[in-house]
């Protein structure tokens, strides 16, 4: 009985050691974004090139959205600090903020759909399933950073 217990302990130890060593060595291997995207979604050279072109085209749009968001967040924070949360200015700014958020979300989703369309259908669906929740789960109820 004691030998069996010791042996089972050895089995568990071997499994745990193999798990730990695998995790350690796998976590040391890092990839850049494009290498990962290509490997994970089995992209061909042509598909990768088209997706990279889509990203380059989207970059200025994204940067513009980013600038507008930051300006609005700053303005909303100023109004909050001034204690004017009940003022029409704040209400209007809040509405504008919601509109910008909606616009940014739509633009991001559209970009993701364009990228997915360049992939093989199954991979495109998997891509959207992996990426979209990471955008949708964003808190849309109040401006980020404004507390």
């Amino acid at each position, binding site marked *: 009985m004691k030998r069996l217990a010791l042996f089972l302990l050895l*089995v568990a130890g071997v499994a745990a050691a193999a798990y730990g060593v*695998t995790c350690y060595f796998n976590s040391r291997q890092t990839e850049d974004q494009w290498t*990962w995207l290509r490997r994970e979604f089995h992209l061909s050279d042509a598909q990768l090139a088209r997706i990279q072109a889509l990203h380059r085209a989207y970059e200025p749009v994204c940067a513009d959205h980013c600038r507008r968001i*930051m300006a609005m967040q700053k303005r909303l924070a100023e109004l909050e600090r001034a204690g004017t949360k009940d003022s029409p200015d704040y209400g209007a700014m809040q509405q504008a903020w919601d509109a910008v*958020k909606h616009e940014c979300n739509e633009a*991001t989703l559209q970009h993701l759909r364009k990228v997915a369309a360049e992939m093989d259908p199954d991979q495109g669906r998997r891509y959207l399933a*992996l990426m979209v929740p*990471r955008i949708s789960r964003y808190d849309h109820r109040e401006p980020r950073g404004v507390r």
Partner: protein
Amino acid sequence: MIDRDPNLSRVLKSWPHQPPPAPRFKAEVWARIEAAREAPWAAAALIAGRLGIPARHFRWALPLGASLLLALAAVAGIGAGTLRTTLTENNRMAAAYVQSIDPLQMAGGHVD
């Protein structure tokens, strides 16, 4: 014909055949008994026996079933580790990727 030869029968009956004892007979028998006791089912010992390697070198070898179970545990550990790191890495890369294209997440990091 031979049975009927009385001379031959007499000679055979009186023939005192005493073969010389095999050298190290007892030692070899005990060595086999010990080897069987110490590594009764070890596949390594069986293979080694066929190759002429003394089984005493495999006194710590595990039985075949136990060896297979250990190998299975190692494979399961490697598989679980690979699965976990793949999932973790995918989540991390996907989060970083979305962050790089989502202006709302980008701006969130810049505002106090």
